[in-house]
């Protein structure tokens, strides 16, 4: 962390040229441009889990408190050698040098009682936690794995146990069974497993649906193996927190039961301590010391376990840890001017050939870094291009190449740890990176709109389509609801959806329709630039083609420019006027789409082109990029023909191995 802070501080002082990354910075294909992040759900990160847990402050405090109690428990004979139940004459004495925590009404030493009480309380708590978790895991896994009748029966039983009022059941069971610590444990497990089972069942169900379970089944694995070796390891963090939760439940409930006199009152535990204190009327005579130590111990242990639980959550789900930083992502306030003043370099000129005198968008030497704890990854490296009025500019590349990073940077949607460290973004001459928040808000929908790959699922499922479009108008323009509704209907018809669908909810529309609604909303305020980040990747070809036709129609009607991002070269060449191919955060080639189609120069461009076999002509062997091939040290673009810019290149470091003759 400290590294990040110090670098960003120096950047704040001297933005611009000085902060440029080394020119040979690159990403490899295998790694994503997004910062390294652990799994977001159940599975524990395999390496360094314990280490990161110990680095977590909550966990350290929690473990510390628990260790203290463990020491108390183990060293009880040393710390309080006298029999804690020994009755003496010195009853109801407040804390003193002789009795550090005073004595009970019967003259027993409270300190000794508290120390010895830890043994029973913690033992019962952990045993209950262990047993209830074990039962819960087995029931949850079996229900989720076998499904159907097994699931119905097990879920029914689980729900019955959950619905049974816990405390009365505890009381009834405890009253009927012979008193003793064993009984308490049995009673608590019976009442405590169901919650664990329900949580673990639903988790197991979601993992059950994953392909790796089907894959294991196809390989020939049996039920037991799949449940305990495939499903269970992926539930580790939840199982752990379930265990911690049931331990808390065990300790608390045991104390409750014993306080009510339903346990074995001759056993020394925190619960029985409270029971006797209450029985002896300690509170009425003001003998707080008889209550407080045991009560505090229970609270402390529960606190420590909860802290540990939180810590497990945080370590396994890194999103909880990301510090909220306001206006993260922009680190060059005013720096844009500095850089664009020096924008006469070869890279920058590569983009100077868009049509139109005043470009809609002008990106110069845009550099974005992802700053991890241990390393910094360059997401976009001195990227420059312009988009003219009404032009379609394509940005092609694969996952992790930085194309989405560029789009997000233009919209200033980057969040920490991504930081814009250099370059400028100008929209119709205005410096986007220097815009204050209020201007940014109107810039974002009114001037430039964006459609994401997952846009279909970005519609609010509990609001009608109409309400969502109306919202766009009413938040951005001063219009009445009636007027907004009228415009919403017009907008739907613009994307060829019947206006009766205004009252529909998103789930009532097909995927293609939803995507069209999203596009309609994006162009609702007539932006001059539409950024589309893989807008059709999740759609079928026929629907994809309809969407593309739709965008072409809209463009004719509304005349906006498009920044089109995709990995599908065929689609891009069909749709774009000019395009660039991006790799490892850098542009490797930039030219009119027809030129790229006719004579791709860079080997990476050629690999992308080759990835799509033709639909006509003879079937010949194609070669993609072999696994592990990397391009490094990508230089600045050089103009090889009018408007055709290519990065200097060698052939790939590791040429694909020779394969068989063409079919």
């Amino acid at each position, binding site marked *: 962390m400290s590294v990040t802070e110090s670098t960003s501080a120096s950047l704040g002082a001297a933005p611009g040229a000085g902060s440029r990354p080394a020119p040979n910075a690159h990403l490899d294909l*295998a790694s994503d441009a997004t910062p390294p992040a652990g799994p977001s759900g159940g599975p524990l990160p395999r390496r360094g889990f314990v280490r990161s847990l110990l680095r977590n402050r909550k966990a350290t405090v929690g473990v510390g408190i628990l260790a203290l109690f463990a020491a108390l428990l183990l060293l009880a004979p040393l710390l309080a050698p006298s029999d804690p139940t020994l009755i003496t004459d010195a009853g109801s004495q407040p804390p003193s040098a002789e009795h550090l925590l005073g004595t009970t009404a019967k003259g027993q030493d409270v300190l000794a009682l508290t120390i010895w009480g830890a043994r029973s309380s913690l033992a019962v708590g952990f045993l209950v936690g262990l047993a209830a978790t074990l039962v819960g895991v087995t029931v949850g896994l079996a229900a989720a794995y076998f499904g159907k009748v097994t699931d119905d029966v097990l879920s029914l039983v689980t729900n019955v146990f959950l619905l049974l009022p816990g405390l009365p059941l505890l009381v009834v069971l405890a009253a009927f069974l012979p008193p003793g610590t064993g009984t308490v444990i049995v009673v608590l497990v019976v009442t405590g497993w169901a919650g664990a089972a329900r949580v673990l069942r639903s988790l197991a169900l979601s993992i059950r649906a994953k*392909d790796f379970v*089907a894959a294991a089944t*196809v390989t*020939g694995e049996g039920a037991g193996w799949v449940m305990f070796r*495939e499903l269970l390891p992926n539930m580790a963090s939840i199982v752990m927190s379930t265990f911690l939760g049931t331990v808390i439940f065990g300790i608390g409930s045991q104390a409750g039961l014993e306080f009510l006199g339903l346990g074995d009152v001759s056993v020394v535990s925190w619960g029985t301590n409270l029971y006797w204190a209450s029985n002896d009327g300690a509170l009425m005579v003001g003998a707080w010391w008889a209550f407080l130590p045991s009560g505090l111990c229970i609270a402390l242990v529960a606190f420590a376990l909860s802290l540990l639980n939180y810590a497990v959550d945080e370590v396994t789900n890194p999103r909880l840890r990301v510090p909220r930083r306001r206006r993260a992502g922009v680190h060059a306030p005013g720096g844009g001017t500095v850089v664009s003043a020096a924008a006469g370099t070869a890279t920058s000129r590569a983009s100077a050939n868009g049509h139109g005198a005043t470009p809609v968008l002008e990106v110069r030497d845009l550099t974005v870094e992802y700053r991890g704890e241990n390393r910094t990854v360059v997401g976009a490296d001195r990227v420059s291009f312009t988009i003219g009025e009404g032009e379609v500019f394509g940005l092609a590349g694969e996952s992790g190449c930085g194309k989405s990073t560029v789009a997000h940077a233009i919209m200033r949607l980057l969040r920490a740890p991504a930081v814009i460290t250099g370059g400028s973004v100008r929209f119709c001459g205005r410096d986007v990176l220097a815009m204050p928040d209020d201007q940014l808000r109107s810039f974002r929908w009114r001037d430039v709109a964006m459609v994401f790959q997952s846009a279909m699922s970005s519609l609010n499922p509990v609001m009608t389509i109409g309400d969502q479009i109306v919202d766009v108008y009413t938040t951005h323009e001063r219009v009445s609801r009636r007027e907004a509704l009228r415009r919403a209907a017009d907008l739907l018809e613009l994307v060829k959806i019947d206006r009766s669908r205004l009252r529909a909810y998103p789930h009532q529309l097909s995927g293609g329709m939803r995507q069209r609604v999203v596009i309609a909303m994006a162009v609702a305020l007539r932006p001059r630039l539409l950024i589309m980040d893989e807008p059709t990747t999740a759609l079928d070809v*026929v629907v994809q083609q309809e969407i593309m036709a739709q965008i*072409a129609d809209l463009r004719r009607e509304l005349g906006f420019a498009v920044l089109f991002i995709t990995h599908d070269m065929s689609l891009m060449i069909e749709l774009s006027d000019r395009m660039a191919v991006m790799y490892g955060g850098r542009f490797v080639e930039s030219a009119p789409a027809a030129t790229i189609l006719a004579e791709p120069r860079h080997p990476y461009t050629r690999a992308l082109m080759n*990835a799509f076999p033709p*639909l006509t002509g003879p079937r010949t062997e194609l070669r993609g990029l072999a696994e592990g091939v990397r391009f490094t040290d990508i230089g600045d673009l050089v103009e090889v023909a009018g408007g055709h810019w290519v990065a200097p290149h060698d052939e790939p470091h590791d040429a694909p191995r020779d394969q068989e003759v063409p079919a």
Partner: protein
Amino acid sequence: MSATTDHAPGRSGDVTSAGTPVVQIRGLVKDFPVGGLFSRATFRALGGVDLDVRRGEILALVGESGSGKSTIARCVARLEQPTSGTLRVDGVDVLRTEPRRASRAYRAKVQMVFQDPFGSLNPAHRVEHFLTRALRLHRRTASAVALRSRLAELMDTVDLDRALLDAYPHELSGGQRQRVAIARALAVEPEVILADEPTSMLDVSVRIGILNLMRRLRDERGISLLYITHDLAAARYVADRTTVMFAGEVVEAGESTALMADPAHPYTQLLLSAVPDPQRAGTFDPAERAALRAQVLGATTCPYAADGRCRDDSPVHHAVAPGWTVRCHLYRPQTEVARRALDVAGTSNA
């Protein structure tokens, strides 16, 4: 469409048995329950599918999502129980002989590679684990030494560095993971691999590598593959024959290049016309093509026109050429419609 039911003997690679189906599906129906607990409503995902996967061929199954192509694979992999129909593998009517769950012997013949390599490898295990389990379960290795050499061999087959045996899935790229998944299927030494969209989640530059690997497995090991995809160009590139599905039915089947050069079914024509192809770029404005498409489809009452004719009166299979069938009311040899559709697809009628 050949309806042979030979009890094909021997394992793959037997030249004489090439052409006889290793997987034979007849009248496969799959209904999924829809609605709540007490609802009896069902959705028919497969409406009586006939399909043969021949020995040592790659058969592509194309269609949009929801057309039922993955359901076929999951039924053959015995991950779903078909509602009715027969499934023969090596001539054995497996739904009869092992009705409840597949035997290990069956698993040894039929393996599957899933669409999402990020989901099909358990993140908790190392690469070595997946391969070792497959080898152990099917007793493909005798000793520890043999195991090591077999693991290395498998990694070589799928072009992966042996050092990656110790890697966890999250340390691999999508393409590498998919190669691990293929290696796991190969470890069992299967006769058929069901490949359910194995490249659609991969970066485009490594897709061809996976397709080439599939071709190599067919050519060098005689493995049959059922390749499920929505990508017609990939199907044409890799598959000997292609079967087109629409709404749970097979609408057209035939030799891949011939079928795609001259599609007979309006739906196949539509699918082809929708595929972006740089070679056609510039010749087709998307909007123009959409208009053309609407014209073609309006004229032909294809499934999209939804006039209900196909629902009320199920069309039969017409033979276009030997080994090439189309299931459509509108099929007429060399009709005006077909020719116009060809123009749409931008293909030349040889």
